[in-house]
């Protein structure tokens, strides 16, 4: 038994302070993104979530440029982008996709610029990799209280808003008829999504952040149709994928070809995909409740 454990877990995993921090931050982030993600999938706003994540890349890289922590950069720009998206508020779905795509291009362009300026002007290497693909093992411990704070705040807001948000997501007209301020709720939700995406970007990078936002939530919603249960399932799946990803990345330190470790983000994203395919296979057997 001991031998199996040793084979699975390279020594020093739990005793390394970096790892413990990564587990804590990663776990917290997974829980927050699970909560927001459930609503994202319900509202069909995965493209917006992806766009926010990608635009966040510009924020993260600008942070490097001006020397503040990437989390602030991610947060700043995703919140600004979310506000812009809400203000523009294009009605037609197709128009929204186009405009989102264009803004995305602008965001990435800015990210390219900031990264370039950052590397030439202040000689910070590793910025592109960190911003885009995350660096969960290398986060400073000062991030933990921030993640805790923002994460708890977002979850609390979601919990408070969960019923009106549910109603608005299902039918805005119905919600408006009951006196719910639809636009306000929608804006609050976008804000929550911006924070979740920023947190996710911190752990697995801006480009891959969508995986944590949408993946576990989509799995959970396949397995159950009750939002509360879905949240717990999504949180469980998300934390599981993140921790297992961390473990595998730690183990991979001795793997070929460079014996430098494989990226954490790769493992997390792959595990999320596997979870999603598995949940698809598991639910495919179920008879359809509705005929199509």
């Amino acid at each position, binding site marked *: 038994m001991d031998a199996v454990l040793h084979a699975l877990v390279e020594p020093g995993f739990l005793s390394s302070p970096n790892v413990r921090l990564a587990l804590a931050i990663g776990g917290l982030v997974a829980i927050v993104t699970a909560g927001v993600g459930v609503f994202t999938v319900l509202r069909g706003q995965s493209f917006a979530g992806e766009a926010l994540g990608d635009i966040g890349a510009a924020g993260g890289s600008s942070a490097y440029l001006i020397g503040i922590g990437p989390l602030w950069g991610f947060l700043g720009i995703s919140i600004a982008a979310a506000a812009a998206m809400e203000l523009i508020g294009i009605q037609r779905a197709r128009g929204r996709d186009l405009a989102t795509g264009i803004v995305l291009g602008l965001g990435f362009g800015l990210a390219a610029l900031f990264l370039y300026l950052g590397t030439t002007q202040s000689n910070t290497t590793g910025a592109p990799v960190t911003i885009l693909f995350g660096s969960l093992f290398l986060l400073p411990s000062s991030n933990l209280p921030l993640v805790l704070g923002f994460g708890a705040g977002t979850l609390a807001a979601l919990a408070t808003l969960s019923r009106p948000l549910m109603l608005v997501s299902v039918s805005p007209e119905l919600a408006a008829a009951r006196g719910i301020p639809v636009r306000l709720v929608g804006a609050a939700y976008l804000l929550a999504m911006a924070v979740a995406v920023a947190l996710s970007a911190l752990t697995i990078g801006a480009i891959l952040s969508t995986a944590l936002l949408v993946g576990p939530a989509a799995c959970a919603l396949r397995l159950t149709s009750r939002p509360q249960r879905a949240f717990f399932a999504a949180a469980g799946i998300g934390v599981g994928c993140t921790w297992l990803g961390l473990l595998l990345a730690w183990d991979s330190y001795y793997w070929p070809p460079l014996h430098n470790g494989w990226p954490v983000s790769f493992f997390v994203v792959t595990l999320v995909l596997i979870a999603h395919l598995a949940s698809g296979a598991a639910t495919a057997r179920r008879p359809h409740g509705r005929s*199509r």
Partner: protein
Amino acid sequence: MTDAPALNVSGVTVELGGRRILDDVGFRLTAGELTGLIGSNGAGKTTLLRVILGLLAPTRGTVEVPSDGRRRSVGYVPQKFLLDPDMPLRGRDLVALGIDGHRLGLPRPSRARRERVQEMLAAVDAEQFADVRIGRLSGGEQQRILIAHALISNPRLLLLDEPLANLDLRSAREVVSLLARIADEQRIAVLISAHEMNALLPVMDRVVYLADGRAACGTADEVVRSDVLSRLYGHRVDVMRVRGRVIVVAGDSDDAEPTHPHSHDHGIEVF
């Protein structure tokens, strides 16, 4: 003039997801006839149209549509259409695509082609808005463009999926008389699906009445009768004619026999 039917549906049954959506549906259409495919939502009209178009394979049964050699000679006007107001395509372009949209390579601009398009636009009275972006036209205008597009290839069968659904009364009457004229002049078999039969009564030659996947076919006088529809629905249905319009009243679903007229009437379903 051939005697071959323009459409031959025989024993078509469609089962999807454990439900029987169409049950042994069969009928024939001949050239020059305008037929109404009547049924409420969920009765199976769209499914039947999809089977006829070859988009859905029936569980049992066959469908024969007219063809010129290899290509099917069927025109189709779908119900929901383009909502993107920015799309760079004029009505005229869409109608032109009806001639040869399936051909590879670039079209050679020819006067004959242009004239044919113009002719078709005139036939459906769409010349005035032929050069406007198609996504900006009203529902009725878009529909006329779609009809021109479907007709320009000279099909022998024309199918329309709920063309009257979103039209105001006047536009509906205009479209109906246009379609009747087309059926008659061009000797095309026209099949129009609708959930409201009254707009079509003046021009319908025949009716295919769908209820719960079963069909009754014949002229309006033969089919739209209390006994026929009651048999079709499996419960009591009364058909009343008021000033030339038809009203179908559904009784209590437990009634097997007609009782006295005013009992257990659960609301009026006007078809």
